[in-house]
């Protein structure tokens, strides 16, 4: 276990941690740097709860070296990763809002929605061309024609594009039209797909599986990174709990937890998390307030007529209002939008 002290932590804080570890029979390797001290803890560290030491005065971070994920870990890379997609930086100072319809239905629908969200400040256009639907009889998406429309709309309104990849065979075609490839919750543990995405050189938006732990989620990202693709954006979209009122339970705590464990940027998808339009805006605000690097939000120019997920899609006017609200929140967390 490694305990990283805060920069310029005073001696008494450091000594307090060493004394505590020492009194419990652990050997401590103290390493004093120019402005930061690191303590290596040797012994049966599996009996120690890192969270306990994180609460000690002057402690910045406690890291278990035995973490199964490596490349995604903050230990591997201290500085936050900034993922770049067609000029948009995710993980930097500016909060990035990705918006658009759940499914690309028609040119009119996509362009109309894109026009409205771009005007409100969305910088990435989302739209599904291949849809993983619970029912095999539900609309399965426009496929390649939908991707062409997505590219055209992205170019028209100067937005980067994101769309879900369902299987390995779709990757090559999608690279032509899409700036960020999204891996859906249902595919988060499709390890063949993840490995194949490790070979591409485009950012991946990796959604959290609906019953995945944070560790499993980071290990999924590890699969992609192990292939050499380091541009990954994590996306919290809610997990299965016993609560039935909302479709999933949006795990806000995942945002600060990921920020501690990993250098990868994290965005929130409140639309899928709740499945209810009226719950999307509060959770979107909460995502940004909790330190999220961005949002993925479903907006439809005419949600009542949407073929897919209409009840969770915002009206363009609601989206505009949300963006105005976010502008008030971001300075409080030291960001801009």
């Amino acid at each position, binding site marked *: 276990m490694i305990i990283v002290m805060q920069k310029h932590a005073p001696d008494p804080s450091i*000594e307090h941690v*060493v004394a505590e570890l020492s*009194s419990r029979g652990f050997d401590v*390797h*103290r390493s004093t740097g*120019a402005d930061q001290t690191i303590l290596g803890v040797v012994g049966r560290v599996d009996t120690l709860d890192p969270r306990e030491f994180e609460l000690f005065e002057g402690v910045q971070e406690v890291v278990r070296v035995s973490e199964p994920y490596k490349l995604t870990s903050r230990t591997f890379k201290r500085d936050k990763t900034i993922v770049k997609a067609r000029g948009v930086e995710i993980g930097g100072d500016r909060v990035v809002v990705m918006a658009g319809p759940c499914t690309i239905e028609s040119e009119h629908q996509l362009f109309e929605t894109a026009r409205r969200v771009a005007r409100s400040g969305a910088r990435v256009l989302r739209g599904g061309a291949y849809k993983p639907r619970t029912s095999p009889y539900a609309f399965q998406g426009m496929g390649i024609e939908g991707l062409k429309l997505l590219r055209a709309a992205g170019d028209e309104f100067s937005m980067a594009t994101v769309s879900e990849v369902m299987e390995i065979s779709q990757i090559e075609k999608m690279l032509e039209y899409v700036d960020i490839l999204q891996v859906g919750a249902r595919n988060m543990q499709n390890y063949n797909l993840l490995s194949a995405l490790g070979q591409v050189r485009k950012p991946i938006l990796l959604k959290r599986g609906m019953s995945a732990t944070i560790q499993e989620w980071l290990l999924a990202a590890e699969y992609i990174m192990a292939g050499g693709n380091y541009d990954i954006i994590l996306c919290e979209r809610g997990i299965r709990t016993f609560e039935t009122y909302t479709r999933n339970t949006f795990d806000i705590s995942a945002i600060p937890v990921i920020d501690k464990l990993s250098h990868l940027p994290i965005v929130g998808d409140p639309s899928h998390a709740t499945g209810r339009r009226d719950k999307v805006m509060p959770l979107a605000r909460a995502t940004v307030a909790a330190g999220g690097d961005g949002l993925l939000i479903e907006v439809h120019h005419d949600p009542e007529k949407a073929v897919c997920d209409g009840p969770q899609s915002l009206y363009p006017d609601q989206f505009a209002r949300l963006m105005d609200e976010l502008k008030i929140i971001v300075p409080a967390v030291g960001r801009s939008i």
Partner: protein
Amino acid sequence: MNTTDAEAELTRLREAIDRVDDVLVKLLNQRAKYAVEIGEIKGVLSLPIYAPEREKEVLRHVEAAGAGPLDSAAIRRLFERIIDESRRVERESASTGVSQ
């Protein structure tokens, strides 16, 4: 210096380092023996193994004794390792001492 001379000089210097290392290990073990004894005493007196003030004093002492080319930060880094090991040795001997 031609190549042959340089190679001979390299060998000579490496042998010199080996001799210094022999002395260093002896001295470090000598130091560790004192730590073992201190550990036993701390065990008898039920004193904590970790004594931050004393560690600071040791570091101040060795940093002041330096004459280069190792600067005081480098000396501190090296002695932090030595102190880490002393603490371990003391802890072991303290617990043995108590059980006796």
